[in-house]
């Protein structure tokens, strides 16, 4: 650390080191006594760059910032007892479906998985703090809908939902659209012809 850090930079650094949870720019600004959020943002950018090569990184997850160890050092730090909850395959699928489709109802989850989802699966994900109730869908029956939380982004190292692996490709391929919609699109086109060419099919499925 050859060049001397600025006062605000040091303050942001100390606050994020000490904090027990990730902090937003606004929370940092408020904690530091009403600093302009823009200045905090600048300090975060400087810090992020400074730590980029270090054993500890400054990262932004869902608009909240925290320090964490560098991913390449994982092998040194793995604990003897696994801290991470092992999810069942059902739970990982449900989590992925919620993350890629949110907000989504239980019926929609089930229509993708083709099986009923036990209440326990959603409970596990709620308990982990990765999904939350996100209101109700305004359709008959007003089903509850689910969405992911900032803790989800945090845990999986995602800056935002746009960072979900492959989400752009899946969306472009129409694989995040409901089957009914894809059916309609496919029927407009003769499916036999569509099968001839992948490109045509892709276009067709991407609504």
């Amino acid at each position, binding site marked *: 650390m050859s060049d001397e850090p600025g006062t605000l930079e040091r303050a942001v650094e100390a606050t994020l080191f000490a904090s027990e949870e990730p902090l937003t720019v606004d929370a940092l600004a408020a904690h530091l006594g009403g600093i302009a959020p823009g200045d905090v943002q600048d300090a975060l950018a400087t810090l992020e760059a400074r730590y980029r090569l270090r054993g500890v990184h400054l990262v932004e997850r869902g608009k909240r910032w925290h320090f964490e160890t560098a991913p390449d050092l994982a092998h040194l730090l793995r604990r003897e007892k*696994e801290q991470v909850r092992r999810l069942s395959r059902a739970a990982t*699928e449900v989590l992925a479906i919620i993350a890629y489709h949110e907000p989504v109802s239980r019926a929609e989850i089930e229509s993708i998985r083709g099986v009923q989802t036990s209440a326990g699966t959603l409970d596990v994900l709620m308990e982990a703090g990765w999904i939350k109730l996100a209101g109700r869908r305004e359709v008959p029956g007003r089903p509850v809908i689910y969405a992911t939380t900032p803790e989800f982004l945090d845990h999986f190292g995602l800056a935002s939902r746009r960072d979900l692996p492959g989400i752009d490709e899946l969306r472009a391929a129409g694989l995040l659209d409901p089957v009914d919609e894809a059916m309609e699109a496919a029927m407009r086109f003769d*499916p036999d012809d569509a099968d001839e060419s992948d490109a045509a099919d892709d276009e067709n499925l991407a609504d």
Partner: protein
Amino acid sequence: MSADEPFMFPPDAGRADADALYLELDGWEGPLDLLLDLARRQKVDLRQISILALVDQYLTYIERAGAMKLELAADYLVMAAWLAYLKSAMLLPKAEQEDPSPEELALRLQLRLQRLGAMREAAARLMGRDRIGRDVFLRGLPEGLRTDRKTVWRSDIFSLIQAYGQVKARTAPRIYHVANRPVMTLDSALERVSAMLGVTLEWMEIRDFLPPHASPELKRSALASSFVAALELAKRGRAEIAQDGAFTPLRIRRLKEGAAAV
């Protein structure tokens, strides 16, 4: 058993033993899931799988499982029946097709399998990310940020003396004043009417009994009291009351001693 490995036995291979099959079933949740695994084992793009081949594999699987006396979930059997129907429809000549066509049903199934496949892959990639507590770690000993709330109380001198004034006003001994209302009591009316009846035997109108210079309020009270007094005297047999019609003047006259009341 990892999710990515094909954990199904090949339908035409006899190498899977009963235990393995049982375990596989245990881990599965439903027909789509099973179909997806069958489709994947064709090692082709999901968009190009042969639904017919898939149906064959599934039905073989159910047959095998059934033969092993496993309790198959209703889901499996419903799907099996549906697929058997789909297969027979696909084998029939086109002309005899109903709506929706088997092609449509097959396409729908294909689309569903694609979507489930995409989500399974996404889930695997998600789980493979650098996860907190497994690959990256947060600070082990955070000092923690604390915000102590302190209440600053505020008041002012006017509120203070006003409050004291109100306590005093509220708890001061209270003196009740009852306004002196102009009334004629029944007793005085009785006295007055008896006295006036004593001077004559002629009929008198009730309003002649009222104090001549009284205020309107007192007059109303006197009228009511005098009327009640007249009734009382009539009851005692000392007076008689007459009225020619409704709302006509009420007349009163003294009765001679011993005479009966009217």
